[in-house]
């Protein structure tokens, strides 16, 4: 069997693939955080909980409503996104005029509520969501085995990321969004309904998290705590990339996933911490983040 630095090639590529998949989730989640932060200036601490709600909604939908995977992929983001819209309208709106750290604290409280409620209803141990039949099995690429579902996750995450990028950078709605990020008061004066834009943006960011949750359901154990630990890593990814650029967030997410995968092969003890270490190095060398604009 072919080896590189004493590591079988199969193992190396397998871990790289796992890393890339993790990276796709980092990218999706940090993208949602960046979009929300851009307009609301709030770091959505409930993002991990909303991702978890997405996965749970898919699981419960399948169990009780017979909602199949493809429908879930469409319906769940809409439902959880609607919940996001409610949160923005009823709660975040009331504190948008004060220090944005309060937004972080409010969403932290929400995360505790969501997570705690589901722990009570379903326990902390994870359940598994079946891989949809069409995507079962895999290809043998010669140098590695590629499960179809994982390939699909990568493609779907990338497509959604690029779609978001296109929406924000290349459409009129996106132009409004970017302008609102720069100067919401002026936009309001120009007759753009900024409060509506804010609501929809938060809803969209939350829907992205829920979409990631549905994608994740068949590969990670679905448990109430699946989101919180992931979110802290995503925070580190956001600090590394900076929130100034959409493509930057996507690239940083994928790159961090790969680095994590490589670490798992060569020095597994540090796999949990390598992204935080990268964050430290970036803070020392380039405090604004790799793609950050502000000093």
């Amino acid at each position, binding site marked *: 069997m072919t080896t590189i630095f004493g590591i079988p090639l199969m193992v190396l590529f397998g871990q790289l693939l796992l890393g890339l998949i993790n990276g796709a989730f980092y990218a999706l989640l940090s993208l949602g955080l960046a979009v929300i932060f851009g307009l609301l200036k709030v*770091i959505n601490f409930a993002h991990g909980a909303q991702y978890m709600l997405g996965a749970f909604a898919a699981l419960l939908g399948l169990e009780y409503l017979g909602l199949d995977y493809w429908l879930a992929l469409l319906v769940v983001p809409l439902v959880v996104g609607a919940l996001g819209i409610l949160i923005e309208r009823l709660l975040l709106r009331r504190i948008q005029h004060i220090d944005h750290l309060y937004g*972080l604290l*409010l969403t*932290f409280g929400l995360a*505790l*509520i969501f997570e*705690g409620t589901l*722990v009570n209803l379903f326990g902390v141990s994870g359940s598994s969501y079946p891989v949809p039949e069409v995507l079962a099995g895999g290809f043998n690429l010669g140098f590695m085995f590629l499960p179809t579902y994982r390939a699909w996750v990568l493609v779907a995450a990338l497509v959604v990321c690029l779609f978001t990028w296109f929406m924000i950078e290349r459409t009129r709605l996106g132009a409004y969004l970017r302008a609102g990020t720069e100067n919401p008061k002026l936009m309001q004066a120009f007759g753009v309904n900024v409060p509506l834009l804010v609501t929809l943006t938060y809803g969209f960011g939350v829907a992205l998290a829920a979409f990631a949750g549905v994608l994740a359901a068949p590969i990670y154990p679905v448990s109430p705590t699946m989101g919180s630990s992931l979110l802290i890593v995503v925070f580190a990814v956001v*600090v590394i990339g900076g929130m100034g650029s959409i493509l930057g967030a996507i690239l940083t997410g994928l790159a961090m996933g790969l680095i994590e995968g490589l670490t798992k092969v060569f020095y597994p003890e540090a796999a949990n911490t390598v992204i*935080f270490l990268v964050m430290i190095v970036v803070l020392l060398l380039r405090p604004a983040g790799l793609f950050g604009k502000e000093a």
Partner: protein
Amino acid sequence: MAMSDSPRVTATRQRSARRRLGLLYVGLIVLGLVAPFVAYPVFLMKILCFALFASAFNLLLGFAGLLSFGHAAFLATGAYITGFLLSTYPGLTPELGILIGTLGSAVLGMLFGILAIRRQGIYFAMITLALAQMMFFFFIQAPFTGGEDGLHGVPRGKLFGLFSLQSNLALYYFVFAVFVLGFALIQRTVHSPFGQVLKAIRENEPRAVSLGYDTDTYKLVAFVISAGLAGLAGATKTLVFQLASLGDAHWHMSGEVILMTLLGGVGTLLGPLVGASLVIGLQHQLSQSPLGDWVSVILGTIFVLCVLSFRSGIIGELQKLVKRNFK
């Protein structure tokens, strides 16, 4: 302050306010001294440890405007170092163990601080959270923490090698002394010229920079003091419960200390004390009731309510009330 106040009237008013505050502190100390005869000492010691922890956290958030989301790391570092030293070296006296744990936390605080103050606001919160999570993973794997099990049966030993801390009542007075020392240090820091500069940074950092203050150094020193005192709280807690565990390092703990401070009153000296008593008391009550499993949901709800409509906290609202009616 009204325009018509002459300096002398202001000075008299300040003096009487200070006298009232002095009386309040004396009252609180007397209360602290008789409390173990009324309530269960271990419960009181838990409150004192968390009150110190929250006060240390509040030094950063309330007086320097820095929201650290990683203070659990300092609590846990103090707890683990002290726990490890006291269980490994039986000759070590508890006050030395606690001192080393505190210093260890302060050093960690220096490292965190150097990194985190390179960014502001929301990034500061995310960086401290990420660094604390890194420490959490470190504590799981490190050889001296007992991993998932934690450290158990940490001996309480003899204070200065002379006084046994075995009885809860003796230990209570030791913990009370530690708390009073820590609280006095914070009180002194806040009211010193250093504390005034911190408040200036909180209100308007660019202005403080333009006045010639090296704000990064001020923030770093505040961070180190806060981390050290959080470590002191953790180290003392280890002595009380004779154990150190991963729960101290979990991000939930960082959230709890924020809640204590917010509920009691950010930027008030007594707020964290009140907030810690309430949160610990609530957790204690809930754990014995059928609602025990819902603690984190209830804490989350209090969080949301505090942020929405109770941002000054209990002491902050009281202060407003007093100002409005007794001016």
